């Protein structure tokens, strides 16, 4: 057991995966000698050399397009896009090819690759460095999308993503990279993609979230307990596509109330999907309309005001109280 932060745990997973399987290669801008602008690839180049850890030209479409080719030809590429805000350059390759090869060839040609990128706001970065656009990828049939919320699940999800036979978008909430530490076990853990976790049991209301907003949600649950005696059940989705409907639907059937929280914009976002599935499955159990607490449908403001955009603990508490009062 070691206490490590999320940056370290992702690094650890890459290290372990590369050691275990020589097909795993890591590529991207500045991932080699520089060890990544967030130091996620620290030590990898020194240990595995140029053939398995390599700097690419500055071209996201190139990085993802060639990763597709490498995956088709028997490797397991883990491609880093330096910031999620720049992966749109690669979107064409993901949508038109990574996501479709298996279907197009009826299973003959497959693309087992991972695209990882730091995502989300909260580190006072420049424009295009703060958005959370995971919904775009959830909306792209053929891709899987995962988002960890802490060191332990980050490592376990990375192993799952690398093992997965399909292309996986692995978004890293960069505000969490060095925010806190957690124990991770010595042996490798692999978390199944497509499974959510109940991280705090409760009976009065369900708070559903993932990624960076898990922390305010857990804090809100604590506050609701202390101040209102309300027992909130908190669910970490972890995997956004496929989405584990069963776990949150069962919870809402029990509590009758739900608040869905994320940082990405609201319109057509992940929360919209969660709410639809609640309506489809347990509408008659609802005691109140489900509230979406999300980023607004605007670009993340430049950093002097980004805090007003991000859902924080107070906003989660308020949304829960509104639901409970209904």
């Amino acid at each position, binding site marked *: 057991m070691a206490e490590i932060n999320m940056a370290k745990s992702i690094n650890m997973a890459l290290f372990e995966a590369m050691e275990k399987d020589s097909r795993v290669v890591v590529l991207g*801008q*500045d991932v*080699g*000698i*520089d*060890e990544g*602008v967030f130091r996620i690839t620290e030590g990898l180049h020194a240990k595995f050399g140029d053939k398995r850890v390599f*700097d*690419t*030209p*500055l*071209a*996201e*479409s*190139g990085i993802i397009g060639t990763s597709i080719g490498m995956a088709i030809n028997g490797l397991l590429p883990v491609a880093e896009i330096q910031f999620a*805000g*720049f992966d749109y*350059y690669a979107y064409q390759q993901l949508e038109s090819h990574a996501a479709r090869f298996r279907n197009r060839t009826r299973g003959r040609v497959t693309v087992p690759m991972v695209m990882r990128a730091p995502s989300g706001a909260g580190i*006072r*970065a*420049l*424009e*295009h*460095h703060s958005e959370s656009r995971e919904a775009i990828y959830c909306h792209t049939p053929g891709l899987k999308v995962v988002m960890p919320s802490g060191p332990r699940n980050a490592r376990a999800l990375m192993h799952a993503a690398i093992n997965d036979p399909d292309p996986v978008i692995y978004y890293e909430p960069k505000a969490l990279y060095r925010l806190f530490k957690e124990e991770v076990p010595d042996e490798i853990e692999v978390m199944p993609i497509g499974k959510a976790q109940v991280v705090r049991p409760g009976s009065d209301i369900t708070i559903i979230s993932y990624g960076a907003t898990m922390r305010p949600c857990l804090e809100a649950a604590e506050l609701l307990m202390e101040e209102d005696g309300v027992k909130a059940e908190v669910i970490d989705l972890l995997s956004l596509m496929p989405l584990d409907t069963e776990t949150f639907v069962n919870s809402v059937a029990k509590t009758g109330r739900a608040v869905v929280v994320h940082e990405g914009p*609201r*319109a057509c976002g992940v929360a919209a999907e969660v709410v639809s599935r609640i309506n489809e499955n347990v509408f008659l159990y609802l005691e*109140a*309309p489900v*509230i979406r607490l999300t980023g*607004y*449908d*605007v*670009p993340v*403001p*430049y*950093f*002097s*005001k*980004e805090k*007003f*955009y991000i859902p924080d603990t*107070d*906003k989660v508490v*308020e949304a829960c109280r*509104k*639901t409970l009062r*209904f």
Partner: protein
Amino acid sequence: MPRKELEFDYTVETLSIVDEEGNVDKALEPKLSDKELLDMFRWMLYSRRVDERQLNLQRQGRIGTFPQSTGHEAIGLGSVFAIEKSDWFVPAYRELVCFLYRGWPLERLLLYWAGFEEGAVPPEGVNDLPICVPVASQLLHASGIGMANNIKGENKVVLTYFGDGSSSEGDFHEGINFAAVFNAPVIFVCENNQFAISEPLHKQTRTKTIAQKAVGYGVPGVRVDGNDVLAVYVATKEAIERARKGEGPTLLDCLTYRYTPHTTADDPKKYRSDEEAQKWAKREPLIRFAKYLEKKGLLNDEKRQKMETEIDEEIKEAVKKMETLAKSKELMEPLAMFDFLYADVPVHLEVQKHELAESLGRGDEVSTKSNPQRSIAGTAKRGG
């Protein structure tokens, strides 16, 4: 069919006018007045001092991460000095000196780095775009602006900037190709500082120069000494003349060195040697231009000192203005995030604006036009 060689009339010209000791090639020396030459120096010095001051402010937490532009002054000023106010300036993010020369108030530029959208608003009276963060994407805008000039029959040229790393992006190729095919009057200025964060030039391209890529698009490419402001000026002037005559785009490959880290968040110790940096330190553009001006009898220590004192005073004023603005009610207004996204604020954003206002305890400030979506949990009747 035998193997034959096809011949092309392509060459890559290289241009340098003032050497490292300040000696000038008389035949190439542009005809600029003493006042213009001193002006050029002053702008470069101003930019350098701002860059240094910004680093200071960043270290004190008064502004955020920013890319330094030390060493880029000759490329920026040499090129922007050659266009007219009515021409277009389409920047990347390392062109501090161009913004200053184009008349962007310094306090506004500082506001940008302090995290305010207001810092990205171009001043009235210039055809400038704001900083562009996703690399190479702006080159297509430059080409489009140039194409529009052709369609509208306007004789304006477009100057656009990008780094050597950016030349790997598809948008670089598409940008130049469009400008070439549509004969758009665009000057593509590569600030070839030989690094894209940690990656040296040879990790971006196997070609010796960026200039020679022009061959592939059928346009002239010139390798320019990017630490020689006069060389940049002359190369740009010539490219502009071609563009104004209707001869289309030019690619300028201005070779310099990135004297500082990539941004204030980067540590270049990991990936480059001190020796190399020292070698380039001697070729730094301000030193070289100063030597040239001294040889011409236009500049001496005393004059330079005086300039510096004035400049530092201006910078101090601008920092003060920026910090006053940054604390002002208007600029600190978070509700403004909803107001500029569309020409008219759509209902869903009005709702969200109201939601944020409420969470700030200011719900009554924001109009609550009748709207069934506003707050279902708050207003709808239970049980339906």
